[in-house]
């Protein structure tokens, strides 16, 4: 909402406060002022001039040489390029030495050999925005529509000494969508009076109610409809004061009648509509719900398809306006209009809101009706408009507005105690303090046995319950004056839950392992996940996505991590390891009706070198076992018991993929990207993992306990086993552990060899075994006995034989 400071000052005395101070006061008390714009800040030395003569430039087709009277001894010679400059016009002249917006400095100049002593200005050049400039002046210079004395200050005449406040209103403060409403707010904040505008009308003997009949079919949707009549008006350009105040408020002037309705809309916050009664099509106004698929053409020339949830003003036959939103094209006020039907009505907010949403129109009217206008402001606003129209367009205002009236204009009454106010705020206000604040707000209030009885004016539709009164008291008392205390609650045990702590622990672990944490979008596409997750997977889709790219909720974290690797690779970053912890969303339903399962997953993606020390020539590319080591580390951090099983999965290398299995259930996987998947993302050899963190957090182990350090020495035995290629290290280890029993404390792979020194189809796997008895020193015989059993079992169960040199 744009509000002219000068306009405001008609209703509340603000002469002793600067616009900036006013803005600060308003902001601190609850009506935020986003910007304070001094309109003519960059304009000076602007004078009214009269074009005495206007001749073709001898050497330029598009230029004219004008002699302009600025009430000095000699008229100025000014070269002007505007097509509409003409003799006899009163124009705005930027004088030599003056300035215009955009850093323009006016100097004496020669244009194609002709001297030019100033500039005749257009409204654009004076800083008005194109969208508010009247059509008449949109191309070419501005000419005063009314008499002005040459040589007088044109800046003042064009309203350029004004300042505009831009209000950023919260949805509850629609009362400030008007100059008067804002004046009430200022009066409350500064403790001043509001002077209401006068609306003198000379009423004729004829009665509107005898010429037009008003019927309302849906009184909930339209509890009040007033049709005033003004006959014999003359449509013309509005006087300059009206045009400039509208422009300052962001509204484009059109003609005197429409300008008045817009002016009153801004002044009272009450939208009005003037119909050309001769084009209305009948002498009855019927307000009804539209028929299904009924059509009408609105003022903006658009054909609108209506439904039975929309309210229309009709002439008994067809719609002439979309109630509260926009008038119809057929009965629009035109230059030849002479008889007006002036609508002042109250439309139900939800009805207007519905139409606004369905039809995608937000007009100055609809945004006010949808919030609820002041029921007590409807008739005065109509009267004010009639008064101004009579003043500016002449005509006869008919007596007795034709009306339908079932409008509730009663004020809400709220009862609240002083104790309640003070205990809500932590203040120590007296009854007088509260009453004085109510008085500033112009809320009628009395105190009765410790209770305030407060009558809330209907302009404040936002006030309806006790806390609303508490807020009014607080904001006028000043939030800054409320004391600072701490809650008197018993002290509570704050902190993170075990799971929250575990999540942090994993982050620390991954950070120290050299991974960077990524955060990516939850919304993705089925196609992006297709490489890993089949199309048959049910997904949670957004009903109306903003773009195809963000249409379903992710079921895996990996694709966006690959996007991130790809993004970085395209920026010459070849070695990178990323992880992300975030939610994925699963549903069992074809058409989602209940909340999906949301699970916290943890995923990682790795490309390029894992270890590198350039000048020492060390390089180690990431491989399956780097990633496995990280996953094993995560499991260890969580004390989760899980194993790895060879598997195959879509999108991954069939020979380099493992499931992570806990309690017989897959809780995640590791693998190398399948080369064709990698290619899809333009990535080199890339490794990924994804874990269902929720499941792992649940399977987490017991609290850590100390184990005594062994008091007896251990015996180490290294063995190299030759086995069939397909026998896994885990199988070998299982046999070793099973046979080694309690004496075997470690069995670690320390070498793997395949090549010319072992038979084709076989491999050599070397283990380092450690035997230990925690009770006593092991004898050589004991070790040899168990070790030979181990070797025997290996041979029997896996075909492994000791490698001989």
């Amino acid at each position: 909402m744009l509000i002219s400071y000068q306009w405001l000052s008609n209703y509340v005395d603000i002469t002793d406060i600067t616009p900036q101070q006013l803005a600060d006061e308003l902001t601190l008390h609850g009506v935020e002022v986003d910007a304070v714009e001094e309109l003519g800040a960059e304009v000076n030395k602007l004078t009214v001039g009269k074009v005495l003569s206007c001749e073709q430039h001898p050497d330029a087709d598009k230029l004219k040489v004008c002699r302009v009277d600025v009430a000095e001894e000699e008229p100025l010679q000014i070269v002007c390029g505007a097509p509409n400059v003409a003799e006899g016009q009163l124009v705005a002249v930027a004088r030599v030495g003056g300035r215009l917006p955009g850093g323009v400095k006016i100097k004496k100049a020669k244009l194609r050999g002709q001297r030019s002593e100033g500039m005749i200005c257009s409204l654009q050049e004076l800083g008005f925005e194109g969208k508010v400039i009247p059509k008449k002046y949109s191309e070419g210079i501005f000419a005063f529509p009314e008499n002005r004395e040459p040589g007088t200050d044109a800046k003042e005449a064009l309203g350029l000494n004004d300042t505009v406040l831009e209000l950023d209103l919260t949805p509850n403060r629609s009362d400030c969508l008007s100059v008067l409403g804002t004046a009430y707010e200022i009066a409350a904040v500064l403790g001043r009076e509001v002077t209401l505008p006068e609306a003198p009308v000379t009423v004729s003997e004829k009665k509107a109610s005898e010429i037009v009949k008003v019927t309302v079919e849906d009184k909930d949707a339209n509890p009040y409809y007033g049709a005033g009549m003004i006959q014999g008006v003359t449509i013309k350009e509005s006087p300059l004061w009206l045009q400039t105040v509208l422009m300052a408020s962001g509204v484009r002037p059109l003609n005197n009648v429409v300008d008045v309705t817009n002016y009153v809309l801004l002044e009272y916050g009450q939208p009005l509509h003037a119909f050309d009664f001769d084009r209305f099509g009948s002498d009855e106004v019927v307000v009804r719900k539209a028929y299904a698929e009924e059509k009408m053409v609105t003022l903006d020339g658009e054909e609108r398809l209506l439904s039975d949830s929309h309210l229309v003003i009709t002439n008994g036959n067809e719609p002439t306006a979309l109630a509260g939103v926009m008038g119809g094209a057929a009965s629009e006020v035109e230059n030849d209009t002479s008889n007006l039907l002036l609508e002042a009505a109250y439309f139900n907010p939800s009805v207007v809101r519905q139409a606004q949403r369905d039809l995608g129109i937000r007009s100055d009217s609809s945004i006010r009706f949808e919030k609820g206008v002041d029921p007590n402001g409807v008739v005065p606003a109509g009267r004010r408009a009639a008064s101004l129209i009579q003043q500016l367009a002449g005509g006869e205002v008919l007596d007795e507005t034709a009306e339908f009236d079932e409008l509730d204009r009663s004020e809400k009454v709220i009862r609240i105690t002083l104790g309640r106010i003070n205990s809500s705020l932590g203040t120590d206000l007296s009854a007088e303090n509260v009453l004085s604040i109510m008085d500033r707000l112009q809320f009628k209030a009395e105190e009765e046995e410790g209770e305030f009885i407060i009558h809330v004016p209907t302009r404040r539709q936002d006030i309806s319950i006790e806390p609303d009164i508490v807020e009014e008291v607080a904001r006028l008392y000043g939030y800054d004056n409320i004391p600072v205390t701490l809650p008197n609650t018993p002290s509570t045990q704050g902190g993170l839950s075990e799971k929250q702590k575990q999540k942090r622990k994993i982050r620390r672990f991954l950070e120290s392992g050299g991974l960077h944490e990524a955060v990516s979008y939850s919304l993705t596409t089925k196609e992006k996940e297709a490489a890993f997750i089949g199309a048959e997977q049910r997904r949670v889709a957004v009903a109306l996505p903003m773009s195809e790219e963000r249409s379903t909720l992710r079921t895996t974290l990996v694709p966006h991590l690959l996007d991130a690797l790809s993004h970085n690779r395209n920026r010459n970053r070849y070695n990178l390891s990323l992880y992300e912890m975030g939610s994925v969303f699963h549903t069992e339903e074809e058409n989602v009706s209940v909340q999906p399962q949301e699970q916290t997953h943890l995923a990682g993606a790795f490309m390029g070198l894992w270890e590198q020390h350039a000048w020492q020539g060390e390089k180690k590319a990431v491989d399956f076992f780097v990633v496995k080591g990280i996953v094993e580390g995560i499991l260890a951090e969580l004390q989760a018991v899980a194993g790895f099983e060879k598997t195959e999965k879509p999108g991954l290398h069939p020979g380099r993929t493992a499931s992570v299995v806990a309690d017989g259930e897959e809780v995640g996987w590791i693998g190398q990207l399948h080369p064709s998947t990698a290619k899809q993302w333009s990535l080199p050899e890339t490794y990924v993992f994804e874990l269902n963190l929720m499941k792992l957090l649940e399977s987490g182990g017991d609290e850590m306990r100390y184990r005594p350090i062994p008091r007896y020495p251990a015996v180490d035995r290294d063995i190299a086993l030759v086995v069939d290629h397909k026998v896994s290290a885990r199988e070998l280890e299982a046999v070793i552990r099973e046979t080694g029993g309690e004496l075997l404390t470690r069995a670690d792979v320390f070498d793997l060899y395949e090549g010319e020194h072992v038979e084709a189809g076989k491999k050599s796997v070397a283990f380092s075994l450690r035997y230990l008895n925690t009770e006593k020193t092991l004898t050589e015989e004991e070790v040899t006995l168990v070790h030979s059993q181990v070797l025997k079992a290996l041979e029997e169960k896996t075909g492994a034989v000791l490698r001989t040199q």
Partner: protein
Amino acid sequence: MLDRLQELHGEAAGKIEEANTLDELQQVRVAYLGKKGPITEVMKSMGKLSKEERPVVGQKVNEVRQDLQQLIERKEAVLEQEAVSEQLKKESIDVTLPGRPVKKGSRHPLTSVVERIEDVFTGMGFQVAEGPEVETDYYNFESLNLPKHHPARDMQDTFFITSDLLLRTQTSPVQVRTMEKHEGRGPVKIVCPGKVYRRDEDDATHSHQFMQIEGLVVDEGIRMSDLKGIFEAFVKSYFGEDRKIRLRPSFFPFTEPSAELDISCALCGGEGCRTCKGTGWIEVLGAGMVHPNVLEMGGFDPEKYSGFAFGMGVERFAMLKYGIDDIRHFYTNDARFLEQFTRE
């Protein structure tokens, strides 16, 4: 024989002195003190001497041996010292070459901010609560005093999944969910961080996905002055002791009275600059006293209980803290961005 010993002593001492390496010294030792060396020979031939002469020569032999032994040890120490020096000289490196970096990853700045804020509040007795990102209309709106068709719903353009399911537009639904768990008994003291979603076109200042932290305190006798107290403690702890706070009236459907919290601008110290748009203040969070309808829907009796709630944008905090100018950086995962947070 004594002369012979004297002679050998002089000879050996000379050779010890001349030895340049430990090897040479060893050779000298073997040559003179070894089992086949001349001094041993002298000892062996002592049997031929008279009773009187034997102890004299024996003593002399011992003296010579001991002296040579000492000379060798001394020489050995010198040579060892030289050898070590030589070795160290060879082992000299260019210490200005770069060291081997310890691999270290980074925490995403949004995570850092969330964790820091959690830490401040848990230190004040708050717990951390979490809730689903796909919410029902009831928890996201209705229970927060935003019935269907309420104009204030426009403040948050929503990604709907069905007419009843949506991507939460705020972390506030966790308020009501937590209150329900408390079954009408206070105190409730929680902060709830999480992702939220709104239908905004992504640009430098808007993101369709962002993060919020919600806070809620409900108990008997909670006052608006308590909200100021908690904020003051939070701001001083998070932004620094010298920051001032300012509350301005505002509007949120789920609080009444509502407030916006500003902190004094760190860049200009309140003088006014570009960051604070010349006001000297920076808006950091929205807050207010919990609306009685919300308390009621959370199962708390508004006649007995009161509370305050607040919500803050994590990206905004991160942008203010680190001077980041484009919100999209948080979601692009560019290594050049992420790596800068290694030390955080």
